[in-house]
């Protein structure tokens, strides 16, 4: 009994242990890795990725998958940039209104995604993949392929203004992480995500409105992608149709590395946090220890496999797809 308990505990904390081992490993090779400056750098790259990962975590808990994030982020980023400019171009005036509006806009995008998935009964992989094309397409259409600059000093404060060494965007990300944790643990919706992921038929039989829960999940994910878009625009000061590029694979990889099972029902936003940090630390660490850049993709692949092997409970698995 005790042994069983300790194994479970170990598995629960395995992703965090992997993260710690990585930090120790990179620090041992180059002590410069372990500095506030470098941690701030890791936190900055992690912030938008974390928002995407939290969004997709809710979907994965339900046993579905969402591949629309690249399109959703590009679309939200571009709409945000235009709206921000239209409303005055600075947070001083009505420009701030663009922030809540774009989160709403992202939620609507996700809602449409969810409706296509649920109403047309298209598996989420395909529905969201197609919606991703639509999002990227809409971003290309709006910008005509150009870059939209957002250079308001106040808005760029997300990156430039620092407290305790970390820029504001990191605190924004932490705030929405806590919101995500709250939704997950303290709302009926959050518990219903787990119910649907644990067994859809069972959830349905016990009175959970499965379709509504699914659509809500996609809407919340969409809102998180919009927040990621705002942070990504704040980070580089511009929006374009490729603003969302690369977020798809990184975010899903992070979520899985953090210990969220792709078949649903387990894991949560804290796993997403650890997973994002693991991937960011690997990426950052490879640069800091001076690995040639052409090896890095392969190395990331190998380390991710090792991290998944170490950090997921694979004894309980029957089928791996």
């Amino acid at each position, binding site marked *: 009994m005790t042994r069983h308990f300790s194994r479970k505990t170990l598995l629960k904390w395995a992703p965090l242990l992997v993260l710690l081992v990585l930090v120790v490993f990179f620090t041992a090779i180059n002590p410069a890795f372990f500095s506030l400056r470098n941690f701030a750098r890791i936190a900055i790259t992690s912030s938008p990725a974390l928002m995407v990962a939290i969004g997709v975590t809710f979907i994965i808990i*339900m*046993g*579905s*998958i969402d591949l629309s994030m690249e*399109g959703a982020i590009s679309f939200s980023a571009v709409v945000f940039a235009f709206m921000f400019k239209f409303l005055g171009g600075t947070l001083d005036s009505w420009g701030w209104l663009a922030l809540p509006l774009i989160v709403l806009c992202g939620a609507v995008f996700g809602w449409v995604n969810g409706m*296509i*998935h*649920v109403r*047309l*009964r*298209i*598996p*989420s*992989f*395909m*529905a969201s*993949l*197609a*919606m*991703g*094309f*639509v*999002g*990227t*397409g*809409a971003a*290309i*259409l709006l910008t*005509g*392929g150009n870059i939209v600059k957002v250079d308001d000093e106040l808005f760029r404060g997300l990156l430039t203004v620092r407290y305790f060494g970390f820029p504001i965007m990191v605190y924004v990300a932490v705030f929405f992480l806590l919101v995500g944790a709250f939704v997950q643990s303290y709302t009926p919706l959050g518990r219903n995500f787990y119910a649907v992921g644990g067994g*859809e*038929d069972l959830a349905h039989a016990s009175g959970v409105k499965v379709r509504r829960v699914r659509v809500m999940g996609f809407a919340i994910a969409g809102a998180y992608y919009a927040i990621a878009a705002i942070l990504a625009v704040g980070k580089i000061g511009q929006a374009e149709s490729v603003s969302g590029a690369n977020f798809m*694979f990184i975010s*899903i*990889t992070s979520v*899985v*590395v953090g210990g969220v099972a*792709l078949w*649903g029902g387990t894991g949560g936003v804290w796993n997403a946090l650890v997973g994002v940090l693991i991937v960011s630390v690997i990426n950052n660490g490879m640069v800091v220890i001076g690995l040639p850049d*052409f*090896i*890095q*993709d*392969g*190395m*990331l*692949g*190998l380390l*991710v*496999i090792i991290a*998944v*092997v170490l950090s*997921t409970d*694979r004894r309980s*698995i*029957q*089928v*791996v*797809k």
Partner: protein
Amino acid sequence: MDFQRFKPHLPWITLVVLVAFVGMVDDTFLRPANLLSLAGDIVPLFIMALGLTFAIYIGGIDLSAQSMANLITVVASVYLASFGWGVAVLCLLVGFGFGMVSGYVTTRLLVPSFISTLAVGGVAFSLAQFLSGQRALNMDAAQRDAVFGWMIGKTGPVPNELFIAAGLLAITLFIERRTTLGRALKAVGAGEPAAAASGINVARYKILAFAISGTLAATAGLLFAVKLSGGAPTIANGFLLPAIVAVLVGGTPLTGGVGGVLNTAIGTLIVAVIRSSMLYFNIQATQQQMVFGLVLIGAIALTIDRAKLRTVK
């Protein structure tokens, strides 16, 4: 008409309707020469999709296909001079080997194929960058024509690539329908625990499915390298998602066990027709991606046979 019996035929009906629709708007589209060149152009995409079909058929996914094709364009360009036609064997072996690694990591280390193939793709990408020295490479034109010229020529009005595609389709169709391997893959896709319980060596067949996927991705890369007379670590980028879409639109859903290589042939043609129809409908370049996405939702909604999906995840 019984709708249940009608459903499996939806993919090719969608294709015929699409072709007829585009043909009505502009009848130059229906000219045999145009249709043949359209079909010839998508052969590398088709071969990649053919491979992906096996991974998706067993309920997995192979995200390494694009990196694999990239790697093979580099391998083919680098070693053509020293190995001659033997480079084709080398390319297929590399594809088979990487596919087996993906399968091994998925089945023995229990890493979901979404992650394992992505990771193996990363390794392939690194290897391609290393071999190519991060440059675009060119093949020696004379040697390419001598060794692989037959791949890209024409027999009468028909591009030779179409014969290659037809040959591969026939082989994969044979594997799917007439071999133990094909039956086993269907069993694994339809229900893995049941397949395992009835004594099928699930892991071995899954590894083989990924190896087939890798081999076909390598074939696509080789053809691509011959067509472009060179290779680079990113030359085939942008192929992966259309290839997945082709498999899905054809009616092989990600849940596995349903669909097959014939579906993929139809799916690839649907994707090709949608893409090229944009020209005939005068859709601006900036609008194409969005229209593609919207048409895709419609096409998928039409072509999936939902009767065989228990829950829609």
